[in-house]
């Protein structure tokens, strides 16, 4: 009996013994970390591979130079394989829940300034941006390096800046020239009515006209932004309480409460009726494709630009990052053209305001943007470390460096943001750039402005509407219910009393 008790004690000691070294290792690691060089953990732009990949060559080079100049600092770049900003944010929020988020996280302005990301996850970096960028000789205020049109995109409704923006993209329709010629289309459409006529001509010529790639959020959210911004342009002032360039969660919630963003408002309902007209021209496997997914994606959503280059559809809706990709396909560079999203005019609907929407979808929402996590989200993020992280960002965000890494990353498909940054002149890109003032951008459900759950449900509804399993009335009723619940959820999550507005 005594022997067995001894054995049990030994076993217990053995099991405790297994745990002790682990604890000891953890403690010594923590002690070592305190005295070791600062390691900045930063998330790479999505789907660019590891830091050594060619897409990241510019960042890699600049990082090495920074580390050489700052022997006490090293940067650990983390690959980012997320398919969308919602997925990226879900990852960050899970990490932040345990205080283990990276120091620099890839972000997009929509979820950051709208209040979709939990408050307190990112730091307000405005105080740093108000100071000179030490790597730009003579600079007195880092923020002055950003174009004035971009700063509103970075600024949250409370005036904080929780995101730094490094690159812009533009979107447009990419078309197969031979298909247009075969269908007798002589020039690219300028108005939505001409666009619909051309789709009809393509269909009559036996050509698959178009793909509304709704396997991901890009095409659906672009359409929502385009048509809503266009048709509600004269009503924005009634709910744009934040007066931001892009409507925030608060604006949308107020717009929904006021019945402006409502399926009962014929002007807003028209947005979705116009989308419904595209169904007859849509590719039958559209829900398998996404306009923003990685080119190398082997499981759905697949890259929709392949449908254009493979000759399966005549028009795909894509972005400026398509240009280098399509040009790299042997012999294809001369076979496609690009035109900006057509303007919705009174030839399409009596609610049209002829709003020129060039630049509404595009803007500073490319790959090169980051947020700096708070100490609550990232326990290593002391004020001293924040200063180091911001210093590293200052190094990346000089005009010359900004142009250097963005141009290498996207081969000119994205546009460096800082004033004076070198821009590659890609054929076709100029036609997509805004020519005048961009109207207020109205983002509602599909761009993670209210809640991510609403975005997920919204995409499902759009898919059902586009594949015909939901009629317009079924869609309208469910969309209205989604709007109402999303506004309530946003108000609850952000502790806002909507009755005050």
């Amino acid at each position, binding site marked *: 009996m005594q022997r067995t008790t001894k054995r049990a004690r030994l076993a217990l000691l053995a099991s405790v013994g297994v745990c002790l070294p682990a604890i000891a290792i953890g403690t010594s690691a923590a002690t070592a970390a305190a005295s070791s060089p600062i390691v900045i953990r930063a998330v790479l732009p999505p789907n660019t591979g590891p830091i050594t990949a060619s897409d990241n060559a510019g960042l890699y080079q600049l990082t090495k130079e920074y580390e050489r100049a700052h022997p006490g600092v090293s940067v650990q770049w983390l690959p980012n394989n997320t398919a969308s900003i919602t997925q990226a944010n879900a990852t960050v929020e899970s990490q932040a829940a345990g205080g283990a988020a990276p120091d620099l996280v890839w972000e997009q302005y929509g979820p950051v300034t709208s209040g979709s990301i*939990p408050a307190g996850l990112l730091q307000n970096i405005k105080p740093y941006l108000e100071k000179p960028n030490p790597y730009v000789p003579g600079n007195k205020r880092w923020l002055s390096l950003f174009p004035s049109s971009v700063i509103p995109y970075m600024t949250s409704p409370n005036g904080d800046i929780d995101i730094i923006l490094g690159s812009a993209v533009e979107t447009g329709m990419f078309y197969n020239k031979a298909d247009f010629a075969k269908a007798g289309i002589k020039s690219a459409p300028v108005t939505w009515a001409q666009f619909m006529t051309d789709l009809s001509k393509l269909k009559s010529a036996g050509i698959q006209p178009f793909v509304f790639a709704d396997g991901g959020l890009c095409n659906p959210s672009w359409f929502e932004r385009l048509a809503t911004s266009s048709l509600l342009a004269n009503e924005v002032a009634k709910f744009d309480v934040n007066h931001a360039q892009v409507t925030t969660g608060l604006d949308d919630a107020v717009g929904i409460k006021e019945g402006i963003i409502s399926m009962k408002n014929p002007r807003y309902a028209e947005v979705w009726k116009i989308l419904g007209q595209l169904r007859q021209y849509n590719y039958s496997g559209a829900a398998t494709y996404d306009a923003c997914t990685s080119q190398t994606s082997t499981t759905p959503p697949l890259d929709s630009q392949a449908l254009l280059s493979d000759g399966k559809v005549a028009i795909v809706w894509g972005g400026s990052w398509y240009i280098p990709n399509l040009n790299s396909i042997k012999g294809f560079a001369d076979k496609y053209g690009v035109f900006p999203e057509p303007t919705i005019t009174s030839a399409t609907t009596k609610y049209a305001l002829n709003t020129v929407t060039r630049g509404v979808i595009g803007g500073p929402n490319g790959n090169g943007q980051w947020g700096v996590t708070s100490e609550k989200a990232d326990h290593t993020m002391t004020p001293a470390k924040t200063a180091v992280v911001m210093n590293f960002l200052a190094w990346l965000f000089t005009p010359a460096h900004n142009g250097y890494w963005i141009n290498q990353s996207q081969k000119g498909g994205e546009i460096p943001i800082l004033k004076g940054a070198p821009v590659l002149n890609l054929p076709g890109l100029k036609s997509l750039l805004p020519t005048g003032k961009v109207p207020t951008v109205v983002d509602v459900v599909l761009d993670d402005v209210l809640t991510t759950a609403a975005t997920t449900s919204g995409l499902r509804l759009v898919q059902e509407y586009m594949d015909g399993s939901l009629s317009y009335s079924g869609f309208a009723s469910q969309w209205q219910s989604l709007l109402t619940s999303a506004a309530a959820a946003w108000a609850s999550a952000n502790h806002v009393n909507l009755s005050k507005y």
Partner: protein
Amino acid sequence: MLGALLLPSLLLIGVFTYYPAVRSLIGGFYAWNGFSPPTYVGLAQFREYVQSPTFGPEVAHIALLVVGTIATTLVSQFTAAEVVTHLPSLAGRIVKYVLVLPIVFPPLVLIEVWDYLLEPSGLIDRIAVNLGLPHPAWLSNPDTALIGILLIGFPWISNLGFLIFLGGLQNLPKDITDAARVDGTGVLQKTFRIDVPLLFPQFRVVIILSGIYAVQNFIPILLLTNGGPGTATLVPGLDMYQSAFQNDQYGYGMAIGTLLFVAMLVFTLFTMRVLRPRTL
């Protein structure tokens, strides 16, 4: 006292299996975005899920997948086990290895292969076009997407169930099988009158495992359709995953998880009761 040696294992299982499970049962009663402090909401999230517009379709889809998976598993794996048992020794051994080997392939490879087969202009599509047959966009057509998901793994033999049936068939009481042979029982008669009744315990295990597998295995759906188009392939497991890890509704996700656990418990108890061994 040797039981004390189990302590480290029990500790690890407790920490990594039971604690998260119990935590998730409790978590369903709290609204939590994963970052801000959780708020007690009682049964609200359970109610919200059951009243959500996707609940009905999700239940219908998972019921179809459970029934489909059990049916295909039982038919294909039992049939394959019967065939292998009746083959000459060497051929039987070779066929057995050939059928079992794919079990070691990573499931992701299988999903990728089926993605290639089912995607627009995939192999099945191209064959259908060449034969002049209709060629639906399997995974992006709401009418065929769930069938596409069920097709994954066809002919559904290479699985644990096959080995369970084969083991059962190889260990049937020899006196009964010999008596059947002497009585001149035909193959079909032997299968349905002797093998199936004697393999009831195996059928019970395979049905329960297949049912649980169908509910838990939402990975092909996540990778191939993400629950779409629309809600055409949305199932509770995927909704739970997306709610928690995509929509930051961890409490809501845990509420779905708890309801799934209860549903699977009921299914298992029901199956065990219906297929319990009976004395004649």
